[in-house]
């Protein structure tokens, strides 16, 4: 088993609360996403406005499902702090890994966990949508947007939290709210954009995801170069 796979398994065991919360949020998001299909169209369409709730509610759920993936993957960041404090990172460095190897291991674990939940939530969402008669085009859009936003948000949160935790001088607990907050920043526009600019929602959300991913990858490369190995020591 490779380092990132072992890290993923350890993260699952570390905190079940995050996983339960992540799954619960996914189920809520999948159901909420399809509520518009249950309500008659004339009740949900607001007169004299340009807001199309029929199509915007399903897209708003993209942010909820992405956040669920973020919560689901947070134990990886907790594990990083835990491993720093207990000397595991120091030992890994002595076995031949360098900062980038270590960071990549946790990032892969984090993205893998997020992908698992995103796959689950999208399958559930699509199944409910098909059952309730939601348009296939809309469902396909949601899959693309959820994966793009979810993965980019998780990547940003994981990389920035690892860099932040590496640079902390004093030992800190792992339960820091900063990680989810950072990851949620690119997800917040996804709540508003589908309502205000429904026609451009797809483009805007995908753009946010691409920019977030590029910023995260740049941060990952910079972190491994600018943060010295000694910062990974307890």
């Amino acid at each position, binding site marked *: *088993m*490779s*380092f990132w796979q*072992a890290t993923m398994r*350890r993260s699952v*065991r*570390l905190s079940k609360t995050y996983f339960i919360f992540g799954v619960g949020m996914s189920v809520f998001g999948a159901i909420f996403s399809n509520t518009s299909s249950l309500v008659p169209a004339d009740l949900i369409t607001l007169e004299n406005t340009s807001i199309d709730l029929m199509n915007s509610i399903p897209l708003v759920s993209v942010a909820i499902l992405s956040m669920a993936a973020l919560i689901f993957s947070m134990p990886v960041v907790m594990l990083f702090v*835990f*491993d720093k404090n*207990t*000397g*595991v990172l*120091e*030992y890994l*460095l*002595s*076995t*031949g*890994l*360098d900062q980038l190897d270590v960071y990549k291991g946790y990032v892969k674990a984090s993205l893998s966990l997020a992908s698992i939940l995103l796959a689950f939530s999208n399958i559930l969402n699509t199944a409910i949508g098909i059952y309730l008669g939601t348009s296939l085009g809309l469902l396909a859009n949601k899959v693309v947007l959820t994966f793009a936003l979810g993965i980019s948000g998780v990547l940003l949160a994981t990389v920035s939290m690892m860099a932040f935790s590496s640079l902390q001088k004093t030992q800190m607990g792992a339960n820091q709210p900063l990680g989810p907050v950072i990851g949620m920043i690119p997800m917040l526009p996804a709540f508003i954009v589908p309502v205000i600019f429904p026609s451009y929602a797809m483009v805007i959300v995908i753009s946010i995801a691409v920019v977030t991913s590029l910023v995260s990858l740049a941060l990952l490369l910079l972190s491994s170069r600018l943060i*010295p*190995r*000694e910062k990974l*020591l*307890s």
Partner: protein
Amino acid sequence: MLGPNGAGKTTLFRTIGGILKPFSGQITLDDADLFNSKEARRRLAYLSHLSALPEEMTVFNALKYYADMEGGDIEQSLDLLNLSDLKERKFSSLSQGQKKRVSISKIFLRERDLYLLDEPTSNVDPKISKEIRDILIKLSKDKFVLYSSHNLYEAREIGTYLILIKNGELKFFDKIENIKTRQYRVGIKSLNDISNLLPDSQFDNGYYVVTVDNPPTVANIINDLVHSGAELTEVRELDNPLQEFFEE
């Protein structure tokens, strides 16, 4: 390696281990720079003062975590430190001494060329400490072992060379046997009163304490005492030569 707290022992270990970058120069292992060469770092084992094991795992799985990454024989490593009985126990539930043994066992998962051990016998009882010392003595026959300790007797017992560092500077590096001290204090226990036979001695804590310039003198003193009717029960060196050296 000896040195007072804060002397830089751990920093030196981390630097040799390729974890810290030297301020100047480079540390090489067969011409490979340990800081930059992953291959070179794989040839060494580093035991820090931290357990460096996943606390949430069982002993077996904690070792498997590293064995999966770098290879190695878990059972052999467990047997070496008599840990087979603990292998299904959760690492976090172990005592400090047990954790130390498990931590040490991870560096024996596979063979290395260089072993860097930062206080391997701290936090363990005397019996385990001796077991660890025996392992190190055996290991050092064909491997290079660099270890730090605050136990001067232990250092003298198993060390071949002594590195003394203070305030981040190398103060001494030579064979331990070459260390000379100004005087030796020897404690002698006897069933009968021998104070008249040792007029220059002091009686302290059941011992007649004699100060001599060099160890061979002790043999003459003992010989004279026995021939004078002393019923000796114990003769021991009271000071470790390294103690004086360490304090200078």
